[in-house]
């Protein structure tokens, strides 16, 4: 009852907002794009790059004639890696700066912080980072990987190609590793891995004392099964972990490690010569050998400096921004509901080859890449799948298997296919 009321309220709010925006069409004011990335605090190192890539994309678009005959103006704010501040700044962007779309956030908790605000004010957010799924918001497009676009293919690679029979799931203690590992545990058990062959360990952010954990992982091999490590260890804790792996002489041939949060940037903090052969799974690596990628890297280096590397969330913003531009062109307006309707089925070429498609569940269909760490800190892509459709609700947890997200035809992000009802229209934050 109550949710329905709030829904109608938000629809009214949305209509009001859209009439307000209609005046922007005659180009009395430029089209505004909010950039909500931390420029200070612990997340700044990752997010500043994304702010820069947004500025580059907007500049390129303006050079190409802008959008709907208007120039695009970037509104950059700094939520300072402070989660409540994300909500505050999002509200400011939508009500004070009146932006038409927001590109931003990194980490699930920052997204959960802005979700209520974006949904209340009917905004539009493009979230560019790989995440744990189990969420679907009408107002968010998830251009990063869902678990089935990163974790599941990587585990398949372990099972199929490396013949791993015993898994160590090591993660930092927060929501992304927890949920991902839950999904992986269920998936592995479906594939005949016994519960006692799955070792799970959670460590705090910035953990540096890895000796015991690495010893535990090595000892897993005592029943003669091939051991593999699935790492969702976050940020600089990886440095101590890989250093300890190297010190213990664990080679990728003995115990392969696949990481979901280690990219080109993280590797710059350590000497990778002892780590060659360990793996990472992403939708994008800088080493991808395509003309589009070469062009993107060249443009990026020209814009930001010759030493800068590119990474997966940057590609996500690249695809997301271009799709949004095309959707606005198709809709002929920046009105959120019209753009949202025009987003479905939008196609844009990936930097790694193939075409990304925006699905009705607000996720992309993208290829999954697995790369081996090389001595120079880059990744050697050894496996690339065809496009995998992102899945908001995983098929491997019983509570989520019955849920489906389809905003285009069903108009619901949390649709229970068993009872054929919409559980809720807002997202679960």
């Amino acid at each position: 009852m109550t949710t329905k009321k709030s829904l109608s309220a938000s629809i009214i709010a949305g209509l009001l907002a859209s009439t307000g925006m209609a005046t922007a069409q005659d180009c009395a004011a430029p089209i505004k794009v909010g950039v909500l990335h931390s420029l200070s605090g612990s997340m700044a190192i990752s997010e500043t790059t994304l702010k820069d890539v947004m500025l580059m994309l907007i500049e390129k678009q303006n050079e190409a004639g802008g959008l709907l005959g208007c120039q695009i103006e970037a509104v950059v704010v700094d939520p300072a890696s402070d989660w409540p501040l994300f909500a505050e700044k999002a509200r400011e962007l939508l009500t004070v700066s009146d932006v038409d779309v927001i590109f931003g956030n990194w980490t699930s908790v920052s997204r959960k912080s802005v979700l209520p605000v974006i949904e209340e004010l009917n905004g539009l957010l493009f979230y560019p980072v790989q995440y744990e799924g189990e969420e679907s918001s009408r107002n968010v497009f998830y251009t990063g990987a869902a678990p089935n676009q990163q974790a599941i293919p990587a585990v398949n690679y372990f099972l199929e190609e490396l013949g791993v029979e015993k898994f160590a799931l090591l993660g930092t203690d927060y929501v992304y590793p927890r949920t991902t590992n839950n999904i992986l545990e269920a998936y592995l058990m479906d594939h005949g891995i016994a519960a006692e062959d799955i070792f799970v360990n959670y460590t705090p952010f910035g953990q540096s004392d890895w000796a015991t954990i690495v010893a535990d992982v090595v000892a897993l091999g005592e029943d003669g099964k091939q051991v593999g490590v699935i790492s969702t260890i976050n940020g600089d804790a990886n440095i101590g972990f890989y250093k300890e792996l190297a010190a213990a002489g664990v080679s990728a041939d003995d115990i392969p490690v696949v990481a979901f949060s280690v990219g080109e940037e993280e590797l710059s903090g350590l000497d990778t010569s002892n780590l060659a052969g360990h793996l990472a799974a992403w939708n994008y690596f800088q080493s991808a050998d395509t003309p589009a990628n070469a062009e993107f890297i060249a443009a990026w280096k020209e814009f930001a400096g010759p030493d800068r590397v590119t990474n997966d969330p940057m590609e996500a913003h690249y695809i997301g921004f271009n799709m949004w531009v095309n959707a606005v062109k198709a809709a002929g307006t920046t009105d959120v509901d019209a753009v949202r309707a025009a987003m479905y089925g939008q196609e844009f070429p990936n930097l790694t080859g193939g075409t990304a498609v925006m699905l009705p569940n607000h996720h992309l269909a993208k290829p999954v890449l697995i790369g081996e760490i090389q001595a120079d800190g880059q990744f050697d892509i050894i496996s690339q799948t065809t496009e995998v459709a992102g899945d908001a609700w995983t098929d491997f947890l019983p509570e989520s298997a019955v849920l489906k997200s389809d905003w285009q035809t069903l108009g619901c992000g949390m649709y229970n296919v068993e009872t054929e009802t919409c559980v809720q229209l807002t997202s679960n934050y």
Partner: protein
Amino acid sequence: MNSFFLRNPSTLWFLMGLGLFTIGVTILSEAGIGFLSTSFIKILGKTLCLCLIAVAMDVVWGYCGILSLGHFAFFGIGGYAVGMWLMYARTEGIVLDSLAAQTIPPTPQEISDAIGNQIFGVVGSSEFPLVWAFADSLFLQLLMVVLVPGLLALVFGWLAFRSRVTGVYLSILTQAMTLALSLYLFQNDSGLRGNNGLSGLQNIPGFETTPQATISLAFFYASALALALGYVLFAWVVSGKMGSVIKAIRDNESRVRFLGYHVESYKLLVFTLTAIIAGIAGALYYPQAGIINPAEIAPIASIYLAVWVAIGGRGRLYGAVIGAAFVSLLSSWFTGGGAPAINLGFYTVNWTDWWLVLLGLSFVAVTLFFPKGIGGLFDYLVRKP
């Protein structure tokens, strides 16, 4: 009561100022001429809550001499206590709506499972942990806002004061307490959603259709009222005979003990009372912030609290209010990119990067050269004419 205000004119001045401020904000808000946006009203409301905990901090440190580096833990507990009800009640509404559509009425177990799945699904669980036992009752959770910080402070303080842990040792111990609490809450196993914390707290169950402009104004009033009441309460505590004993403990604990006062009881009372007020401030703060998570109660937050009080001026309640309001608003102005970058030719000073350096150094300067803080300026104003 009259005589209390006569003896403490600054309290009266403060209440009048706060009243005028509230009226002014109402007129400028979207309910009035619409000059102040809803997000700014939320910032002001949050700042009032920070002022309240700063006043509490001033009493415990500036008046009683206990430098607690853990009062933000109590603030956070208050936020968590009220946040649990907000999350539970909101989710319950959603779940009941969705289950009502089924052909067969749900069992209590199914309802509880569905709520649990909604709340804990994102952290990979659906079981209700024990700490959520009272989450369905607003009254009990509000009681916990007061009881849990109070009890924690009582037990902690009793142990510490009884063993005569004083001075810097106590500071480090309180810091360890807030560190332990935040580490505990960071764990997913703590049952409070780990790093994600509790979110969506700005949506008040039962007021789904009320616009945030109204809700934020209501919370602003509530925060102002809480600050006024808290200020009066503490002004009353630190005036009169008890206030004299408390200040005497700060200046020379042993001498007060020799005079026959039970020092530990006084300290415990002040410590517990300020913890409770901190809890109430937190309970009002987080519904305005929208999300609470363990990073909020990391040790650094309590240190900033001490910084506000020191810059505002210790040993005077309005000093704490000024410090908290001034430094926190200035902080958000600087870090929010509000301050223009200064181009020095060879280097551009970007305030988002340099603000903390400035804050840290100005803090050193205040300790060294202006121990009375900003509040000390009022002494000049009062004495000069």
